């Protein structure tokens, strides 16, 4: 290496560093929103967020992870606001003083999907708990997220209600510890049942020819099992050591999400000609 080459290399890097350094400037306030992959992948946020950003001249940076990780991000103060779907973990989060309050925003539903042959004979059942019991009784393959996500929590709750404690070392229960897409793909390839939120299933459906909805029906209105409700809440995060509570921007975000205007936009957000979320905030006339 000649000195000239070293010189050229150093100057290139210096130019880069100058560009990086000079970009430190006054910018719109930044709000870090930690949310679940299912919310993010639905495309809803892309649709509604520009309105919030314009009103508050803020920039919302979305970090899409599993609910378990989103809650950890909140606990460490790395997110300013959470939009997640795991009631029990959310309540524990707020009770531990990490969030100011848990405000329900919207809901959709979980469904059980499975192979077209329906080896457990559960197609058309209305009750998820009963369906899980049949799956365990027949020892037909079931694949679990197994990743502490909101969907995994819901699945464990249904097993609990069915009085069954599925054993990951048994021949029919697979806890794969992966995302929803991978889990559905696994179910498709190994002819297994799984629990999935309707939005994700709809968006991946065309690659899942060998799967069908066995419990939950073709749209949210047809799903009569209250245990399959998938409720999303917003929680403004209280930064650790803060005495003033969540940032004003985080509070404004929560208020904006449950405002009548935004709630109407959520109700009007369609995908595959179906509403993906049903607004949940109470508005007194």
């Amino acid at each position: 290496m000649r000195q000239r080459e070293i010189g050229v290399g150093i100057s290139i890097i210096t130019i880069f560093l100058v560009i990086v350094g000079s970009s430190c400037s006054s910018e719109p306030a930044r709000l870090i929103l930690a949310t679940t992959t299912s919310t993010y992948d639905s495309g809803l946020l892309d649709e509604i967020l520009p309105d919030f950003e314009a009103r508050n001249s803020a920039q919302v940076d979305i970090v899409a992870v599993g609910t378990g990780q989103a809650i950890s991000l909140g606990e460490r103060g790395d997110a300013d606001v959470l939009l997640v779907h795991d009631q029990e973990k959310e309540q524990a989060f707020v009770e531990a003083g990490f969030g100011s309050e848990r405000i329900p925003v919207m809901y959709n539903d979980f469904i059980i999907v499975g192979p077209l042959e329906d080896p457990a004979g559960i197609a058309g059942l209305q009750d998820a708990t009963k369906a899980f019991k049949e799956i365990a009784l027949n020892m037909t393959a079931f694949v679990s997220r197994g990743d502490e996500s909101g969907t995994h929590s819901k699945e464990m709750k249904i097993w609990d209600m069915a009085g069954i404690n599925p054993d990951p070392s048994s021949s029919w229960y697979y806890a794969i510890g992966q995302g929803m897409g991978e889990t559905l793909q696994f179910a498709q390839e190994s002819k297994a049942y799984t629990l999935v939120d309707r939005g994700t299933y709809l968006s991946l459906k065309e690659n899942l020819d060998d799967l069908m909805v066995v419990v939950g029906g073709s749209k949210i209105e047809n799903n009569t099992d209250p245990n399959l409700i998938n409720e999303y809440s917003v929680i403004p995060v209280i930064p650790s050591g803060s005495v003033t509570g969540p940032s004003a921007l985080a509070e404004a975000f929560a208020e904006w999400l449950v405002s009548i205007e935004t709630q109407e936009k959520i109700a009007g957000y369609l995908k595959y000609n179906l509403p993906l979320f049903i607004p949940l905030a109470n508005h007194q006339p």
Partner: protein
Amino acid sequence: MIYCGNLLHLADILLALYPFNDNGSGELLRVILTTLQVSGLALGISTLVGVPFGAFVALSQIRARRVITVLLYTGMGFPPVVVGLAVYLVLSRSGPLGELEWLFTPLAMITAQTIIAFPLVAGLTVAALEGVDPELRLRAISLGSSRVQEAIIVMQEAKGGLVAAIVAGFGGIISEVGAAMLVGGNIESSTRVLSTAIVLETRQGAFGFALALGGVLLSLSFLINVIFVMLQGQRRWYRR
């Protein structure tokens, strides 16, 4: 508020010059530029530190040489996602360097990728320089070269191996997903790079687009490696 979060505006500047940036290809271009900036800077830093460090380890007589070499070789196989986790914990607002507010910005990704590339660059530098005929060093010393001159002569001789060390470092970070996802957050228009975009598209079921992005990443990697190999080819000019 002075805010240094969403850095690396080279992408924005270039996008402003790009005539068709109001359609989907604008975002793709931004992702490509962010990928090049993050991995390019990380590689630059780990080269500036790793090559001299590797040269020092290979050419010095210190007793810890073997131990350091083994540690560097071990570092080459270290799971990037663990590096990402460690960087996350350090840069987290509840971590020791939380004040910097680097988390979920390209700076966090550059930090993680620099740490991932460093053992590759330094370790392979050690290997390349140790492969040089010891006769050459003896001759240099007998001709009265200083330690630095001696190191430069050996490095010139091992130029091919040094370029290979940098190429390995580049390969280790350009396609890395776990750490980039964890510390960058895959934020649109900010920390989304090709590898994390591929994960996102796969998750959303857009397998075709994900595969196309894989093609873009591969082509990018190919072009950059062509440049590296051209540098390697110049080696003959330096033969004495």
